[in-house]
């Protein structure tokens, strides 16, 4: 099992303590394409941040590819984030004073890859995503869908085994949402990247193979969705 969560607890202690995750048990295999759904404030982002080692948890065990992820040094955590995990955020989180291609190559900078090689690789990813013409544009010159594709390229350039996406279509219209989801699906099918998507949108969830519901800080029902028929709005669209 690539990802194995056992009784994960997380409490936020800013002022009033807030017990957000109350014992999460979750296993995800290599190559799965999973979505996490739940009400606003149910702890989806919190869970994803823990999965991505962006945040700590208080109790339980998180096994990632056979390694216990607990009390890691910042350096080790950075290493995992850099090599094993890619992130995509709802708000894209591109660095606005860097061009698209510079944003994409940034993870490789922290790996110590030479500028030339970085640039070549980043360009090939942008080309693959149909963004070659936009490589030297700054994020504020790109549309939402373009930005998200740049962000996905950045998440993938280190060839991570896991791609975590927190509401990747949250800021996109339905057409671009479909495009982005198709892109993720293709990645999962051809590159065998394990993908976990947090979403509000049933249409987005419907693109994935498994839908995990989170409620009151614990995992609720898990729906297998191999047929992609779960969307109450139909199968081919994502309703906004």
């Amino acid at each position, binding site marked *: 099992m690539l990802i194995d969560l056992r009784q994960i607890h997380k409490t936020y202690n800013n002022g009033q303590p807030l017990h957000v995750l109350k014992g999460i048990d979750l296993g995800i295999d290599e190559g799965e394409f999973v979505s996490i759904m739940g009400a606003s404030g149910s702890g989806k982002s919190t869970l994803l941040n823990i999965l991505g080692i*962006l*945040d700590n948890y208080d109790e339980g065990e998180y096994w990632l590819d056979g390694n216990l992820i607990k009390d890691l040094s910042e350096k080790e955590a950075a290493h995992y984030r850099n090599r094993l995990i890619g*992130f995509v955020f709802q708000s894209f*989180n*591109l660095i606005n004073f860097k061009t698209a291609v510079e944003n994409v190559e940034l993870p490789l900078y922290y790996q110590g890859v030479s500028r030339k090689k970085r640039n070549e690789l980043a360009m090939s990813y942008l080309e693959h995503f149909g963004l070659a013409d936009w490589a030297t544009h700054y994020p504020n010159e790109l549309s939402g869908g373009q930005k998200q594709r740049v962000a996905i390229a950045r998440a993938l350039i280190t060839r991570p085994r896991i791609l975590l996406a927190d509401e990747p279509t949250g800021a996109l219209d339905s057409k671009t949402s479909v495009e982005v989801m198709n892109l993720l699906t293709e990645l999962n099918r051809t590159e065998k990247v394990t993908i976990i998507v947090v979403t509000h949108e049933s249409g987005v969830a419907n693109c994935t193979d498994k839908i995990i519901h989170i409620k009151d800080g614990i995992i609720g029902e898990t729906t297998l969705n191999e047929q992609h028929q779960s969307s109450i709005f139909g199968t081919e669209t994502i309703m906004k």
Partner: protein
Amino acid sequence: MRFDTDTYREIMDALTRNKRRSFLTGFGIFWGLFMLLFLIGGGNGLKQLLEKNFDGFATNTVIIAANETTKPYKGFKEGRSWNLQYKDIERLKALVPELEVVTPSLPQWGYTATRDEFTASCSAKGVQADYVKVQAPTMKFGRYLNQVDVAHKRKVCVIGERVWKTLFPDGDDPCGAFINVNGIYYQVIGVDVSTSNINLGGNNADEVTIPITVMRDILNSGEVVGMICAVGRQGVNMGDLEGRIRQVVARQHYIAPDDKEAIMMLNMEVMFSIIDNLFRGINFLIWLVGIGTLLAGAIGVSNIMLVVVRERTVEIGIRRAIGATPRDILSQIIFEGITLTIVAGLSGIVFSVLLLNLLEVISQHKAVFQIQFGTAISALLLLMLLGLLAGIAPAYRAMHIKPVDAMRDE
């Protein structure tokens, strides 16, 4: 921490693509360094300009001159005119052994010196050869008056810089040439370019110095001398001698012992110490203001950097999320700080050097305003240290930004 061209480009990108931010941060440093160096250079130049007025002047000199009495004494009414005489010099020498030199001076104003078609207005002064002990000349050409000139009443003269330049516009060595001063021809034996302004006869540059014996004959002044200059021996405090000098002169001329105004005494030592204190004060102020500005600059930089780090929380969080270690972030912020400091600091140095140069040109190179290379370098080093210190708090804060912090700032 690694530092290669890649890191360098990363830093330059961050700095040059956020120009307003970089400018604001760097400006404090630029201004601090500029102010400090400009003040140091300007202060030094000003000091030199002022000191030129005392050039070569023995600091432990008292200048004595006669004035109308202000008190009746021994049957004489107040308001009586009297004159210093040669015998006062002998008496002072005999009665105040702490004095190394006592020498007369016969100053005259409103003279005209001519040579061929050239004319210069000047002052003239008759002195003895030992006047050099009072005011050391700076000979550009030739020599100063000597005892033989004085004893033989030679018609020779030493001329000041402006007189020389006016009468000898080619800038030639004038020694041996004759000039006419108020109808009498003198052979020029030297040019004194000392810039001293103290000789009460006006500017040294406008002066023609001749043997006192010659001046005495011209003026037909007999035993009368215009001024007496007394120089104390090494280590003697002229202030302590003033009373005795006054006493010796007063008794001879029947002046009331407490009639201070009748005997004008100018104690150069006091003047010098006033100037000295003035400059000590100015120097203190310069350092106070300079260091203050620099410190304020550093603190300002630190503050701005703190704000900048807060502003960059998302950026830093993103970097962390895609694999930057805290050390990567720390070194980035510190290198950015150092780069900014160096660029802004060097601009500050260049700007102050340029401005000081301008000052020097404006002052016609009469003084050196320019700071020394070492001063600039140490200021820069001091600045880099300050910049580093200023960067610590912001870098520390930046280092502790977590990846999740970036996500939260939506």
